[in-house]
C-alpha cells in the first residue's frame, strides 16, 4: 500500500478535476434530470463544456449563477430562484443540487434551503436532493460516488422506510463506477441480462450518453435510469458494485433495505471477467451462455498473439483511482512493467492495493515516462507523452481528440480483447519503426 506523492508546491498539468464534475456526470445517467451547480456561472459552464467535448452529446446542467454580492448577502435567494425556474419551466423528474468550492467556503446552508423548498412545494413525484461536493476534496470519482450515494438516500427517502413485500429473485442492481463508458455499462448490463436476470443500473449513462437521435429538444437528460426504476431497486435480490468507489452507495442499500452487495474492483482482464461470469452463474443458477466460452477463448488467443509485443514493455498510467487499478490489473496480465501509477487523489481502495501508487499530476507522469513505451491518461497527457517519447493511449476523462472513446468497451472478455488489441497495435507500430 505504499502511497507516495510529489513534493512540488504547485500542480503542473493537473490530472484532477473538480468533484462537482463527477456529480454532473452521475446525474446524466438519470432520466429527465437536471444537475444544478450552486456556484458561479463558470462552474457549470466549464463542466458542461468539458463533458460535451468528451461525450459529443448535449449535457444537462444549470447554475445558480452566483455573483459577488449574492455570495456576500444571500446565496439562498439565487438557489431558490434557480430551483423555481427549473421547476416551473421543465418539470424534471430529478434535480440534484451540487455545491462547489465557492458555496462551501462561503458556508451557505444550502442543504436546509433545499429541504425547505421541498417542503414548501410538496414535491411528490419528483426527486430533489442535494450533495456537498467542494472542489478542495477528492476528484471526479469521489464526486460521482458521493452523488450516487445521495441519490440512493433520496430514493430510499421516497420509499419512506417501507421495505417491499417480496424480493424479486431474478432482479439485480448495478452500480457502475464513474470511469465506465456508456459502452461499458451497456456491455455489463448485457452480460448480466444474458443470465436471465433483470438489471437496474444506477446511474445509467449507457442510455443517455451513448449517442442516439431522439427528436424534441429538451434541456433535461434524454436517457438514463427512470425514477420509478430507481425505486424498484429496493426489490432486487442483490447489488453488483463495479469499482471500489461504489461500495459506499452499495452499503447504503444493504443497511436500509437489507440487499446484499457484491463488489468487483474492475471488470477488465481475464481474471476479473472470470470472477464476474462465475458470480453471475452462481446467483442466477444458470449455466454461462456459450458465447462467453467463445469470447474467453478469443481473448486468450488474442493475449497469446499479442504477448510478443507486450513482452518487456513498460507503462505509465495516470487515471482516476478505480480506473487506474483496473487498468493496472489487465496490464499486469499482459506482463507490462508498471513504471508509475499516478492518480489525482487518495481513496480507501489505494490503501488496500499492493502496488506502489503516486498521488500526483501529469507532470509527475512525464518525469517518470522517459524511456517508457506506453502512457495511458486522458487527452491532456498527449503533449507530455510526446515530450517523453512514449506512445500515448487516451483513456479516462476527458478524451476529446479521439472519436468513440465514450462508447468503447473495456470490460468483460470482449472489452478486454478490444484493449489488448488496441494497445498491442500501438506497441506493434512502434516496433515497426525500429525504435
Amino acid at each position: 500500500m505504499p502511497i507516495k506523492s510529489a513534493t512540488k508546491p504547485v500542480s503542473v498539468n493537473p490530472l484532477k478535476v473538480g468533484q462537482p464534475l463527477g456529480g454532473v456526470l452521475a446525474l446524466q445517467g438519470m432520466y429527465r434530470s437536471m444537475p444544478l451547480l450552486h456556484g458561479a456561472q463558470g462552474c457549470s459552464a466549464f463542466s458542461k463544456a468539458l463533458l460535451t467535448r468528451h461525450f459529443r452529446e448535449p449535457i444537462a446542467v444549470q447554475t445558480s449563477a452566483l455573483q459577488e454580492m449574492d455570495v456576500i448577502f444571500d446565496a439562498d435567494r439565487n438557489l431558490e430562484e434557480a430551483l423555481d425556474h427549473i421547476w416551473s419551466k421543465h418539470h424534471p423528474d430529478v434535480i440534484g443540487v451540487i455545491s462547489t468550492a465557492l458555496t462551501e467556503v462561503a458556508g451557505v446552508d444550502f442543504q436546509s434551503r433545499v429541504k425547505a423548498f421541498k417542503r414548501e412545494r410538496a414535491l411528490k413525484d419528483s426527486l430533489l436532493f442535494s450533495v456537498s461536493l467542494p472542489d478542495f476534496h477528492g476528484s471526479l470519482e469521489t464526486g460521482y460516488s458521493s452523488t450516487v450515494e445521495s441519490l440512493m438516500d433520496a430514493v430510499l427517502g421516497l420509499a419512506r422506510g417501507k421495505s417491499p413485500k417480496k424480493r424479486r429473485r431474478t432482479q439485480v442492481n448495478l452500480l457502475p463506477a464513474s470511469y465506465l463508458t456508456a459502452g461499458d455499462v451497456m456491455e455489463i448490463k448485457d452480460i448480466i441480462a444474458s443470465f436471465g436476470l433483470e438489471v437496474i443500473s444506477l446511474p445509467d449513462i449507457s442510455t443517455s450518453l451513448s449517442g442516439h437521435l431522439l427528436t424534441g429538444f429538451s434541456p433535461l437528460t434524454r436517457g438514463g435510469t427512470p425514477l420509478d426504476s430507481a425505486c424498484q431497486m429496493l426489490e432486487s435480490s442483490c447489488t453488483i458494485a463495479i469499482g471500489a468507489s461504489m461500495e459506499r452507495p452499495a452499503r447504503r442499500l444493504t443497511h436500509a433495505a437489507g440487499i446484499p452487495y457484491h463488489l468487483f474492483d474492475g471488470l477488465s482482464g481475464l481474471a476479473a471477467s472470470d470472477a464476474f461470469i462465475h458470480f453471475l452463474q452462481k446467483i442466477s443458477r444458470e449455466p454461462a451462455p456459450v458465447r462467453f466460452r467463445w469470447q474467453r477463448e478469443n481473448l486468450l488467443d488474442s493475449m497469446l498473439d499479442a504477448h510478443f509485443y507486450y513482452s518487456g514493455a513498460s507503462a505509465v498510467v495516470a487515471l482516476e483511482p478505480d480506473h487506474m487499478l483496473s487498468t493496472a490489473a489487465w496490464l499486469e496480465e499482459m506482463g507490462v512493467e508498471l513504471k508509475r501509477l499516478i492518480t489525482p487523489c487518495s481513496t480507501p481502495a489505494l490503501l488496500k492495493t499492493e502496488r506502489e501508487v503516486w498521488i500526483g499530476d501529469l507532470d509527475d507522469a512525464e518525469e517518470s515516462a522517459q524511456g517508457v513505451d506506453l502512457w495511458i491518461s486522458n487527452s491532456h497527457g498527449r503533449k507530455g507523452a510526446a515530450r517523453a517519447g512514449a506512445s500515448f493511449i487516451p483513456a479516462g476523462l476527458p478524451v476529446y481528440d479521439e472519436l468513440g472513446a465514450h462508447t468503447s468497451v473495456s470490460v468483460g472478455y470482449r472489452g478486454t480483447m478490444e484493449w489488448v488489441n488496441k494497445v498491442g497495435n500501438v506497441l506493434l507500430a512502434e516496433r515497426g519503426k525500429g525504435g
Partner: protein
Amino acid sequence: MEAAVSNGRLEVSCGNKIPKSTPCPRPVPGEASGGCSFDGAQITLIPIADAAHLVHGPIACLGNSWESRGSLSSGPELSAYGFTTDLGEQDIIFGGEQKLHESIRYIVSRFAPPAVFVYTTCVTALTGEDIEGVCKAESERLGTPIIPVNSPGFVGSKNLGTRLAGDVLFQQVIGTTEPEQTTSHDVNLIGEYNIAGEMWHIERLMQQTGMSILSRITGDGRFREVGWAHRAKVNMVVCSRALLGLAVQMERKYSIPYFEGSFYGARETSYSLRQMAYLTGDRDVERRVDKLAAREEMRLSLELEPYRKQLKGKRAVLYTGGVKSWSVITALQELGIKVVGVGTNKSTAEDVSRIAARIGDDAEYIPEGGARQILKTVRSRKADMVIAGGRNMYMALKEQVPFVDINQERHKAYAGYDGLLSLAKQLVHTLQHPVWGLAAKLAPWEEETEFAD
C-alpha cells in the same frame, strides 16, 4: 485587495467604451449560460505563449478548463501548461498565500518564463488572499514580472473578464519594454487569438503590403512583444468589443489611432487592410493594399464560383458571440447565403445596429434562450443550417440540422480571403453530406409497420 472592477469603471457596461447602456444584466439563476469572468480573463491572456499562467484556487477552475481553446503557438508552449495551486481544505482554512509564494518561485526557477500571470478565483477572492501583495513581493525577489489578474468568476460575465484582462495588459504590461526596431507601418492586432492559425494567414497578407504586426494581442503573442505595443502606429481591434477599452485607453495615453475591423469575408478583409493602411498614413502602402485587394478578390471570386452556385439562396441561422455576429453575416452574404436568424445575446447596441445594417428586418433576432430558441427559429424560418459555437453543435445534430462550428474550439481557419474559401467549402461539404439523407430515412422495419397499418 482592491478589486480590479472597482477602480472607478464599474458603471461601464461590459465592453462598451461609453457608459450609455445599463451594466450587464444579472444572469437568471436556473437559466444562465456562458462562462464567467475568470474564463474571459484566461481566454485573453493564455495565448501569450511564452508566459506561465498560474491559477490560484481549488482545482476545478483550471482542472475543468485547460486546453479547451484552439489558440495556436508558433513556438513556445509554456502557456499550454496548466499551473494551479490546487488548494485543499487546509490551505483554505489557514490561507494559501505561502503556497502561492512557493508556487511562483517553483515555476520561475524551473521554467524561467518572461512573466507569470496569477489568476484570482472566486474562493481566493472570497477568503481575501493578498494576491497582489504576493505578486509584488515575488516580482521584486525574482526579478521577473509576476502579474496578478484580479478577475474571479463571480464578478460577472466572460466579457467582463476579457475587459479586465485588457486592463491588466494596459496597466502592467504595455509600455514596459521597447522594440528593437520600429517602422512607420507597425500595427497591433488586438483581440485576435490565432484560433486554428488565423493570425498567421492575416500576417502573410499584411506582409505583402509592407505592413507588419508589432504586437499580437494576444494570439501567438510573446510577453515582451505585448510590452512594446505602445510603439505601434495603428491598433486594429479584431472582433472583440471587450478589448475595445484597451484600444481606447491606448489612444488616450499613446495617441495610437484605432479602428474596429474583422477578417471574416473578402469585403471585411479588404476594408480592414485599407483602414490599417490609411491610418499608417503611407500612400504607397495604401496603393499596395488596393492592388492586393483587387487581385485577391478577383482570384477568390473565380475560385468561389462553383461553391457560390451551390450555396445561393441557402438559409442559415447564425448564433455566435458579440461582434462575430455582424462580421460573419457579411462573409455569408458574400457566399449568397441568407441569414434568417441571428443571435444577439452577447451583442452591444452597436453590434445590433451593425447587424441591422446588414440584414435589416429580414431575420429573426434571438436575444436569448440558447438551443431551444435556435431550433425554433430554424423551424419557423425554414433554415437549412445552423452556424454557431460548439456548445450548440450536438443539439443541432440531434435534430439533424447541418451545423458549422464558428467559435473558438474549431480547427479550421476562416479568416482572410483564403478563409472565406475554406468556409465556403466547409458549408458545401456539410450541406451535401450523405449522412443527412441516411438519417432522414426510417429503419426498414419501421417502414414495414407503417405499411401494415
